[in-house]
């Protein structure tokens, strides 16, 4: 598709679109972006943008690839290539996107675009666990990231270091962080955690203390949750370091109603318990008892409460609580085993992924709300991990891919019908057309045209005015000319002379009229000849087209039939491969869930063993005490 040369052309939309494709990866809503001027130079590129701007990324991707194939985007080659990279990325094709960015971006004259692209690619790669690739992408970023992304980049770099166990590097990356926003909060929190893991508890604790006591701006739930998380981490770090007195104030800063309250209450109890204040420890632990047994902290409190009672010497209450705990663990283990069975039966993925919901942003899909079912109730934390989400996304992508292939499979049948209809129509129409073609002798018409041209040339050369006169004029001319011999024979009398004079006069007038109109009539003849030329050429072109179509059709038909057959085979092969991959992906997602459930089951089983062991020890102690009592009574 070329552009009409007469139009004034400006193209400003294209680079903006390419940038937007990259920006999309951050989850930015396009609606929030400034509007772009709209002229594009290639219609096909504009059509891709029409789908892209409506977040139909798959449609845009397919159209863009088709446009490349047909060379329909020559005026936007570079932007289109970048857009292709962005679209690949939005479709989860991070490898292909990376290759394009590598090829296109390093030489791109817009460093801001380049830096943003590498940033988002690095982010995606980290989410997918491609740490080395993510590091390389971040390393390519120059210095032009916008201020709102720069903190995230620094945090991302530190996270990557921590992901790979390079804690000292993470510390180096984060240590210069001074800002007081939420990102800096995350950064300091992560640095604190990293330092604790490096064994530098004091330094790590100082960092966590900072986060745990900072009022973040803006004040919202995210900031509060981060503070709670830091205080829990700090409390447990001190507990681990054998500093319960330092642990307790941090844990007590955690909100009682927040998502970290159970961990904090448990920790406060352990802090008291570590200082042998078992009575105080019972206060938070008994508070935990009333909460949901799904929470691991609550499960642990079922053991902690009787432990405290036993330490206080209240063996009967301790035994009652151990028995209660064993019952609760039994019931919970049975529930988890039912969940494991349900996950194995495939119910989990059915619950989590409803493939019928296929909105335009399908490939950006992420599971946000966890359905409340037997299979998913234990999996809240697992569902929030990148690993699980990305695996789930791949599973859903495969489902969408299979649906797409199923739809094409049905269409290919229709394509065969279309081709068949065209074949029949061609076969029906061809004989009458050929008949008509044979009836028209174009060659004879061509010869006649040549003769006509020669005649006109002769008339022009001989200035045969009468030849171009009207029919009446020609008849009159002939009549007047025919009179001449008769008039010549009349003799020389006055009457004869008068008649000859009249004839000459009339012929003269006619000659004058013919001469007057000659030039116009000659021009008209030439115009008619030209028109005849065009008509003959058109007729010949049509004839040629029909003959060419007749000749080409068998080949075209065979080529289209072969293409349909080849595509059918490709669709079938891909359907089969996608179904196999879907099965593997399903087993993988289920294995992740079962790993998680199994870990919970094993933990509860270990708790149960501990409870039984402690109960047995209590009974032993009681029976020893009774024996001592009996012996004492016997002595009396």
């Amino acid at each position, binding site marked *: *598709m070329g*552009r*009409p040369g007469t*139009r004034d052309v400006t193209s400003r939309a294209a680079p903006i679109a390419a940038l937007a494709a990259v920006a999309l990866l951050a989850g930015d809503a396009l*609606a929030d972006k400034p509007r772009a*001027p*709209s002229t*594009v130079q290639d*219609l096909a590129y*504009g059509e891709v943008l*029409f789908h892209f*701007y*409506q977040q139909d990324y798959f449609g845009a991707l*397919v159209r863009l*690839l*088709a446009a490349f*194939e047909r060379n329909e985007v020559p005026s936007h080659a570079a932007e289109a290539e970048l857009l292709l990279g962005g679209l690949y990325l939005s479709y989860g*094709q991070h490898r292909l996107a990376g290759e394009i960015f590598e090829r296109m971006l390093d030489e791109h004259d817009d460093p801001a675009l380049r830096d943003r692209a590498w940033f988002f690619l690095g982010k995606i790669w980290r989410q*997918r*666990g*491609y740490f080395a690739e993510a590091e390389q992408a971040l390393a390519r970023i120059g210095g032009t990231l916008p201020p709102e992304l720069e903190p*995230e980049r620094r945090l991302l770099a530190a996270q990557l270091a921590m992901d790979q166990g390079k804690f000292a590097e993470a510390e180096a990356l984060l240590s210069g962080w001074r800002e007081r926003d939420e990102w800096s909060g*995350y950064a300091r*929190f992560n640095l604190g955690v*990293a330092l604790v893991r490096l064994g530098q508890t004091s330094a790590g604790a100082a960092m966590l203390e900072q986060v745990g006591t900072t009022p973040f701006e803006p004040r919202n739930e995210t900031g509060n949750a*981060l503070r709670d*998380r830091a205080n829990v*981490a700090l409390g*447990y*770090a001190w*507990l681990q370091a054998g500093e319960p007195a330092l642990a307790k104030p941090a844990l007590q800063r955690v909100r009682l109603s927040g998502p970290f309250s159970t*961990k904090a209450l448990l*920790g406060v109890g*352990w802090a008291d318990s570590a200082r042998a204040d078992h009575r105080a420890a019972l206060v938070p632990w008994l508070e935990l008892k009333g909460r949901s047994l799904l929470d*691991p902290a609550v499960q*642990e409190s079922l*053991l902690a409460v009787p432990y405290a009672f036993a330490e206080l010497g209240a063996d009967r209450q301790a035994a009652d609580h151990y028995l209660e705990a064993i019952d609760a663990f039994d019931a919970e283990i049975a529930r988890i085993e039912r969940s494991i069975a349900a996950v194995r039966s495939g119910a989990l993925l059915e619950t989590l992924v409803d493939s019928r919901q296929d909105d335009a942003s399908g490939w950006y899909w992420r599971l946000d709300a966890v359905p409340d079912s037997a299979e998913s109730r234990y999996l809240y*934390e*697992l569902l929030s*991990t990148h*690993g699980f989400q990305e*695996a789930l996304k*791949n599973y859903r992508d*495969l489902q969408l*891919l299979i649906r797409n292939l199923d739809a*094409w499979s049905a*269409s290919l049948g229709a394509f065969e019908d279309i*081709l068949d209809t065209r074949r029949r129509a061609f076969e029906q129409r061809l004989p009458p057309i050929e008949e008509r073609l044979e009836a028209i002798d174009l060659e004879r018409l061509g010869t006649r045209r040549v003769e006509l041209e020669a005649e006109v040339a002769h008339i022009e050369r001989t200035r045969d005015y009468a030849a171009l006169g009207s029919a009446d004029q020609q008849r009159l001319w002939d009549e007047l000319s025919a009179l001449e011999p008769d008039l010549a024979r009349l003799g020389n009398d006055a009457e004869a002379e008068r008649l000859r004079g009249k004839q000459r006069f009339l012929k003269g007038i006619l000659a004058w009229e013919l001469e007057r109109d000659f030039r116009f009539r000659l021009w008209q003849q030439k115009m008619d000849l030209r028109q005849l030329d065009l008509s003959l050429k058109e007729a010949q072109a049509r004839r040629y087209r029909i003959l060419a179509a007749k000749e080409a059709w068998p080949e075209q038909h065979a080529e289209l039939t072969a293409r349909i057959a080849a*595509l059918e085979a*490709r*669709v079938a092969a*891909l359907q089969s491969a996608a179904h196999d*991959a879907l099965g593997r*992906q399903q087993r*993988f997602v289920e294995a*992740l*869930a079962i790993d998680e459930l199994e*870990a919970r089951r094993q933990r509860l089983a*270990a*708790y149960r063993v501990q409870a039984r062991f402690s109960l047995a020890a209590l009974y032993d102690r009681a029976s020893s005490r009774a024996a001592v009592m009996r012996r004492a009574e016997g002595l009396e």
Partner: protein
Amino acid sequence: MVTAALAAAAFALSAAAQEAGKPAPQFAVDDAAGARAGEFRTLDEEVQALKKLAVDLNRDLFLLEEELLFPASTQVSVFVSMDVGEFFALDSIELKLDGKDVASYLYTDREVDALYRGGVQRLFAGNVRAGEHELVAFFTGQGPHERAYRRGATLKFEKGIGPKYIELKISDRESRLQPEFIVVEWE
């Protein structure tokens, strides 16, 4: 990001909790997905490869579909674009080809926005014989001062051997503070 920070914290917590209480094990959640990272990567690479095959297949199917439904020798496609569009809010377009209604399209806000940003919509694709044809488009929407606005634009065109592309372009005529509807033939 939040999740990642949590995961990092959970690891520290698990280590801390392990030794904090005498009888109790840790409560932190294990990163089951992390433990299977290698397996994830193998499957991810497989899914990537399949998706690449699927995209290429879709491209080839798309091209075949167009060739079958609208062969170049008979194809006529009508596109809609918008340049600025300050003076006209598009609601719908009706299209007549040689006196016959061939398209009647009501726009959503999302579609108008996509046009506004530089998208070009293929409003109609059909087949016509070679020779002269007439296309008439009626644009309905809101004009300046929020007044109902309906305008028509006509194009007589010659269909040759190759595909015929026609662009209906809505733009602003700044000098008269009015919208302008232009029909452009592409080569």
